[in-house]
């Protein structure tokens, strides 16, 4: 017979050990701190060897660049460039995400609910989803011109098929029992869609949007880089000509922060609006 050791003496598996709240914060901050430290060290080393080095600017250069772009008016246009760029980019992104969400939800639910529509359009959607959206960008510029429309359409083409396919799959994952039950309660096809399936897809739509954010930003920056007169992506590619790392890096950090905030906002919206869908409830 093996004797059981007292609980305190048992070393639990690494797998079962959890960091406490304090440790979680420290551990999460550590990689960021290491990255910053590595950058500062690299920057200092390079600047010591060559004071004109542009690759890894010193912190003071960032402060100056951020001041010029975020707090001072551009001498030529009179705009504060960071805000103009941010406004233009977020407008494009917001419109495109709204359109993609509406289309994706509608398509996904209809595909998931109606076998005939699924049979007719599912293969088409699967094919369209495989077209690399950036390969279509020249076509968009040729047909839609270089204005806002082409950029928005690029994002919509890029993420709508993903959202629609994801939602169609989610509809398929609803338990058959639930859908049969609804029919025994008198549900018509329309009512199955509007009262049973659609309401359960809203939180799924938010999940799908969150996962699409990265791709949406990618397409936005790409479109802005090629043909634009303002926008975060436009600015980065513009100052690239002068190797202006002191502008590019803060812009990248700003874009990352915006994306993180959008992700957070969607997550909070999901928890607030769809309490029933939160795990552990």
């Amino acid at each position: 017979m093996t004797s059981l050791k007292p609980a305190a003496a048992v070393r639990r598996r690494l797998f079962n050990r959890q960091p406490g709240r304090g440790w979680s914060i420290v551990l999460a901050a550590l990689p960021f701190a290491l990255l910053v430290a590595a950058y500062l060290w690299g920057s200092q080393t390079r600047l010591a060897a060559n004071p004109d080095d542009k690759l890894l600017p010193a912190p003071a250069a960032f402060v100056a660049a951020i001041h010029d772009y975020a707090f001072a008016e551009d001498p030529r246009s009179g705009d504060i460039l960071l805000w103009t760029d941010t406004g233009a980019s977020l407008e494009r992104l917001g419109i495109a995400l709204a359109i993609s969400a509406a289309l994706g939800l509608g398509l996904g639910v209809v595909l998931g609910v109606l076998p005939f529509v699924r049979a007719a359009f599912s293969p088409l959607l699967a094919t369209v989803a495989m077209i690399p959206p950036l390969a279509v960008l020249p076509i968009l510029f040729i047909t839609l011109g270089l204005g806002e429309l082409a950029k928005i359409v690029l994002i919509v083409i890029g993420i709508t098929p993903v959202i629609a396919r994801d939602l169609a799959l989610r509809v398929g994952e609803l338990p058959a029992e639930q859908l049969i039950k609804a029919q025994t309660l008198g549900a018509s096809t329309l009512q199955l869609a509007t009262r049973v399936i659609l309401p359960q897809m809203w939180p799924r739509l938010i999940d799908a949007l969150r996962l699409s954010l990265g791709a949406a930003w990618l397409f936005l920056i790409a479109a802005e880089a090629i043909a634009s007169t303002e926008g975060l992506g436009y600015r980065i590619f513009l100052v690239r000509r002068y190797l202006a790392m002191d502008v590019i890096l803060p812009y990248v950090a700003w874009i990352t922060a915006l994306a993180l905030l959008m992700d957070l906002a969607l997550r909070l919206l999901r928890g607030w609006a769809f309490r029933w869908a939160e795990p552990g409830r």
Partner: protein
Amino acid sequence: MAEILVENVWKEFGQQVVLENLNLKLAAHEFVTIVGPSGCGKTTFLRMLLGVETPSRGTIRIDGEPLQAEPGPDRGIVFQRYSLFPHLTVLGNVLLGLEMRGNRGLGYLWGARRKAAVRRCEEMLESVGLGAARDKYPAQLSGGMQQRLSIAQSIVCEPRVLLLDEPFASLDPGVTQDMHELIVRLWRDNRMTVFMTTHHVREAFQLGTRLLVFDRNREGPAAAQGRGATITYQLALKGPKGEYP
């Protein structure tokens, strides 16, 4: 009120015969309990009554009319699990059937009609002991409460036939006793026909007015050919006794 006539019903999936030669004639307001080993077609039979499966041969009639080949409001169902709507509150779950039948369009009721429907649902929730839980979501309920809700959801729509597919299989024994009392009371009050599959022979004898035993015919040359199951015994019982108020 539902008289049920099952005539020479077979169910085959490809080469495999699941059920063969089912014949059954039921007067209205029976409580039919169905027992038998796993995989002998109890659930398939229930699914045929539900309209999710169609018989390969033969016909099923309710009150003389052939069964519709899809689930409909005349036949309620309580599955073992997963038949609640997670996005609706307890009240919303019961209300849904009345709303969808009251408004054939989008399935929402407003004003006085909604109030009347809500009142009826609240009475129904009281009668199954869920009055205090009306604003909770299904995920917040225990297994027994979920099954009560699922039953209430079906009964409020007044089906002629209520199908119960091992409804109490995942509940603990104390809860099961309560559920027996509940289902017998609802069966008596609502004058419907109940079909219930179960693994508990005792439960089947206690509740049923008629007990069906599904099994494969194990004797004779037919057994060797791997044929389907059928109703091997059919017992008329006294039905639930006075201990169920």
